[in-house]
């Protein structure tokens, strides 16, 4: 057993965060060096641990808050799935953000809170007890707020206010759920769940509902999603963080933990709370897609698309069969890769070409080919076109639904795929098939610059493609999700 590695994994983002806060605004090189070093170190540690966990090693770190109340950082396969995603995307987002903000103001503050967000996300992933989970979950809320209001204009401040109203109310409900449960059972540890069966069924259902309500705010489940589209007022790297690296993912991950590690699948089935959650998730999937269809602003459309896509993860978890679970877990990674690509691209379109509305994309495929290719690959993946990652998700979710005997889910998946096509294909069409302004070659080169801005979406798009193509490998997202399910939930 190794106790140092989980702490180190947390420190690779926490230390850069604290150092960055105290750097002067002018020391740009130091700031970039510290953040990139942290990101590379984290990725390195993740690679070491991926190998270790595959071989069955344990990594955990315990620390007593008060007698009986423990902080537990634990690296299991599920934690590592999330950490790998956020470590990989953190590195790319840092590179992207450095290029994006060149010459901006308040950057020490920005990168400090950015790294703190990643530290909080890592903590959420590694949490081994409910209280640890809550602590990092709140740290995430608090460290995201300064990023949402980063621009400091009235619109961002309003978005920040809305974000806090939703998330803090959510966390109060979550705390209520945790304290209520723990006052009956004592502190809850994920790896050694206490037997909840001796408790009253109705109370348990109520507590479960409180958990979903509390965590559902970050996962943007309908009707708790209102903050997400408004938060688009924030700069593009922040959107990437909210939608792919940290926030909505933390919500979805939390719901998976609650279903599988706090209550356990068997109890969730006995209580009959899985199916209602699947209904809500399905409704959110369709609702988000319909709302996305109505948006004319690129980032707004992407935001509603996230509302829809994140609920795939929750749907998979709620159906609670082996294949559905694999589908949900793998989508945690797949959605992250595809959605971050699209937000990177949207940021490039907005910053380099001044395009924020869908109509503005006309003819951009030839003026900004790399960006447009990356965007198109991700969009096709979202629709579920093979062999891109999104297809794998939908395939597993479909099989999982049949396995769980819920045939209606197939209709939801099909409907959602149609809607996805309806709101993403017009973008691809405009990019490639609609004539835009006349182009000059030199102009095209000038638009797709600097490399640090263009490379990250290309890399993530390629990763999304590879995750689909190489899904058969053991270390692909699918392979890893299968390992989690085989090892932990259906041995």
């Amino acid at each position: 057993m190794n106790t140092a590695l989980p702490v180190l994994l947390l420190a690779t983002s926490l230390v850069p965060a604290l150092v960055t806060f105290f750097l002067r605004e002018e020391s740009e090189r130091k700031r970039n060096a510290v953040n990139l070093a942290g990101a590379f170190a984290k990725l390195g540690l993740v690679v070491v641990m991926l190998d270790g966990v595959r071989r069955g090693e344990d990594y955990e770190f315990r620390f007593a808050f008060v007698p009986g109340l423990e902080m537990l950082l634990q690296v299991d396969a599920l934690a590592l799935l999330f950490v790998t995603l956020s470590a990989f995307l953190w590195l790319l987002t840092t590179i992207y953000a450095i290029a994006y903000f060149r010459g901006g103001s308040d950057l020490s503050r920005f990168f400090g809170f950015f790294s703190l967000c990643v530290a909080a996300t890592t903590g959420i992933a590694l949490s081994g007890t409910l209280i640890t989970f809550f602590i990092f979950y709140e740290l995430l809320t608090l460290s995201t707020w300064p990023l949402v209001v980063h621009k400091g204009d009235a619109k961002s401040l309003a978005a920040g206010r809305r974000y806090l109203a939703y998330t803090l109310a959510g966390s109060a409900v979550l705390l209520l759920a945790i304290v209520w449960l723990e006052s009956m059972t004592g502190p809850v540890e994920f790896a050694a769940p206490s037997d909840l069966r001796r408790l009253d069924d109705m109370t348990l259902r109520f507590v479960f509902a409180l958990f979903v309500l509390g965590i559902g705010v970050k996962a943007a489940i309908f009707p708790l999603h209102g903050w997400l589209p408004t938060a688009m007022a924030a700069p593009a790297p922040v959107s990437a963080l909210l939608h792919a690296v940290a926030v909505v993912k933390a919500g979805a991950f939390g719901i998976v933990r609650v279903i599988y590690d706090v209550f356990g699948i068997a109890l969730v089935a006995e209580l009959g709370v899985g199916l209602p959650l699947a209904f809500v998730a399905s409704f959110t999937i369709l609702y988000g897609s319909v709302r996305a269809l109505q948006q004319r602003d690129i980032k707004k459309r992407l935001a509603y698309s996230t509302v829809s896509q994140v609920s795939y993860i929750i749907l998979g978890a709620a159906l609670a069969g082996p294949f559905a679970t694999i589908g949900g877990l793998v989508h945690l990674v797949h959605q992250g890769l595809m959605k971050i690509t699209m937000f990177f691209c949207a940021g490039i379109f907005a910053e380099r070409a001044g395009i924020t509305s869908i109509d503005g994309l006309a003819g951009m495929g030839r003026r900004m080919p790399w960006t447009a290719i990356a965007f198109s690959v991700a969009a096709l993946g979202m629709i579920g076109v093979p062999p891109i990652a999104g297809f794998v998700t939908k395939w597993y979710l479909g099989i999982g639904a049949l396995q769980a005997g819920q045939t209606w889910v197939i209709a939801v998946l099909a409907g959602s795929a149609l809607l996805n096509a309806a709101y993403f294909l017009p973008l691809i069409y405009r990019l490639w098939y609609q004539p835009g302004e006349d182009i000059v070659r030199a102009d095209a080169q000038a638009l797709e610059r600097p490399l640090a801005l263009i490379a990250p979406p290309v890399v993530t798009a390629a990763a999304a493609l590879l995750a689909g193509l190489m899904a058969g490998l053991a270390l692909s997202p699918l392979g890893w999700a299968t390992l989690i399910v085989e090892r932990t939930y259906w041995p």
Partner: protein
Amino acid sequence: MIAVTACLVLPLAAALAAIPLGRRAPRLALVAAPLILLAALAVATEIWRTGPAQLPVGGWLPPLGIALVVDGLSAAFLLTGAIVTGAVVLFATSIFSTPDRETRAGFAFWPLLLAMWGALNAVFLSGDLFNLYVALELLTLTAVALVALDGRRETVAAAIRYMLFALFGSLAYLLGVTLIYARYGALDIALLRILAEPDAPTFVAAALMTIGLAAKTALFPFHAWLPPAHAGAPAPASAMLSALVTKASFYIVVRIWFDVLPVAGNEALAMILGAMGVGAILFGSVLAIGQERLKLVVAYSTVAQLGYLFLMFPLAGSGGEAQPWAAGAWNGGVVHALSHAFAKAAMFLCAGLFAEAIGHDRMDGLKGVARTMPLTVFAFGLAAISLMGLPPSGGFTAKYLLLTAAFAGGNHFFALVMLAGGLLAAIYLFRPLERAFAKPAEGSDITPIARWRQAVPLVLAGAAIALGVFSAVPFDLLRIGRADAAQEGLE
């Protein structure tokens, strides 16, 4: 234990010496403060090693003589008081030191501050009800004088109002003490614990003392004096008043309820205290939201936060028999008092720095200070986290313990009030923070503040956070000398 004597004698001697020293008093305070801090540390380590101690003054044992008593609770308050006061001394040297001439405020401040420190230590170390009264009176006198320090008409009026409430409190307390003496012929805490019986005079005495102390603590509805007094005083004095002076009377209530007269603890009286606490939380928070001056926001926040402290009485259960969750409630209340001391002192010092930099303390002036005074905003933010009861902070640990005790004891209503109080605190604390993160207003000009001065509140706020992260340490300290309740820790 020479250190105990030093804790009493050093500050009082320094206070006396400060009067003739005049403008050289700050230098004396800078020498005395570390010594007193060291003495407090020595006391804490001593009882950590050897357990609680009783020191008969002059060698006369109670009931003839009077005794000083040190246990975990007194050591924790002694140490917290020393850290906060030490920071305030350091902070105040930059305000109340005019080496070239003598000012009235500068002349009066130092003796008053040092005498206040001595009075606080006397409260925390007294083992005798009448001694507590004397210490409390000295404390009140210094506090009232500090409120009136700048001599403006409003602050003098606030000071007089404070004086009236405090006198009412003292009289009620003294009447209770007289009743106790008439009934038992003893005032020593340890003796009374053995002698006390649950009869009418004891109950009336306990009620009188509690109500008197509640008035001194500014518990709702006796809170009206607090906001103008705490907001009107100079920032270092406000920090002392909110952080420590209110805690001294609370400390005596805790002693009376749990150590002196546990038998007199009455369900109805506990519920009344709880109801007053609920009123304080809701009323104080709502009023804090409406304030347009930062210092008043912080002062009303104190009214609200003091409410949480008094929830510990109904939550711990009463009637002398220790409930299984009583330890949680007791620890929660005490940790709340300690972390509030750090956080509120930090917050008042921050408010003072903001006012100094922008020239006034209206909220609008805060626009953009996150860019110009990042360290102070960071300190304010950390203190705010603890006051909102969000993790990781002492405020959160306290709230978690109180919430768990509320659920375990079936007091769900109190739990809901605490959660609501956290949300309300978020509203009134994010209002100034939001302004801080807004774009600076055109042409706003600020006086630069030295970095070391900004670091002082940062250290205090950091202590409030550390109390949550490393809460095992204060817990071990607090349980020293507590035979029953605190030993059990959490279930």
